[in-house]
């Protein structure tokens, strides 16, 4: 069973741990993600040390197919966002994974 963490949960952390009031906490979490998004839309990757890097990759157009009708439809050239986890996050995961499997 897994829980899902949302912006509301992150705002709660800022309220509890940083002492922002509830309105500030919720606004900060929204602005944080909106700002990362705006940077990505402006063509900038975002490197968050301790977490990972959001990178942009341009993909060439390629032939695709509608899997239902088998009709060929070209997939247009596009830019995609990729996330590359940093060393610290990978180490944290290793530690948790170790405690899970034992």
């Amino acid at each position, binding site marked *: 069973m*897994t*829980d*899902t*963490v*949302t*912006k509301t*949960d*992150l705002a709660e*952390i*800022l309220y509890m*741990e*940083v002492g*922002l009031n509830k309105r*500030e906490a919720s606004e*900060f*979490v929204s*602005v*944080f*993600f909106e*700002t*990362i*998004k705006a*940077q*990505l*839309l402006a*063509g*900038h*990757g*975002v*490197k*968050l*040390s*301790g*977490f*990972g*890097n*959001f*990178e*942009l990759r*341009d*993909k060439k157009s390629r032939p695709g197919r509608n899997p239902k009708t088998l009709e060929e439809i070209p997939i247009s*050239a*596009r*830019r*995609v*966002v*990729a*996330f590359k*986890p940093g060393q*610290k*996050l*990978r180490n*944290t*995961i*290793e*530690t*948790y*994974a170790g405690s*899970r*499997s034992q």
Partner: protein
Amino acid sequence: MKDSITRSELINILAAQFEGSELSKSDISLSVREIINHMSATIANGDRIEIRGFGSFTLRQRNPRMGRNPKTGEPVPLGAKYAPHFKPGKDLKEQVKDKVGT
């Protein structure tokens, strides 16, 4: 494109956006740290993060498999591996898509 902003640049951008508010730069910097730490712990714990309009993070497991020592050819069991995965949300994906080549 291809250039990236760093965590400290992101903090500066956020500080500029919150100028004139009650939030000090150290509140902002601490808030970014808390968000990143909580997100890392959530992913490592195997729980999911869902940020509407931005994307979701999950922990994916790669099955244990038999590897081989490349020198001796001897089979070596490799344990299950876990890796974080980011799936861009619909908004982000659609909006960044057309920025290809810019």
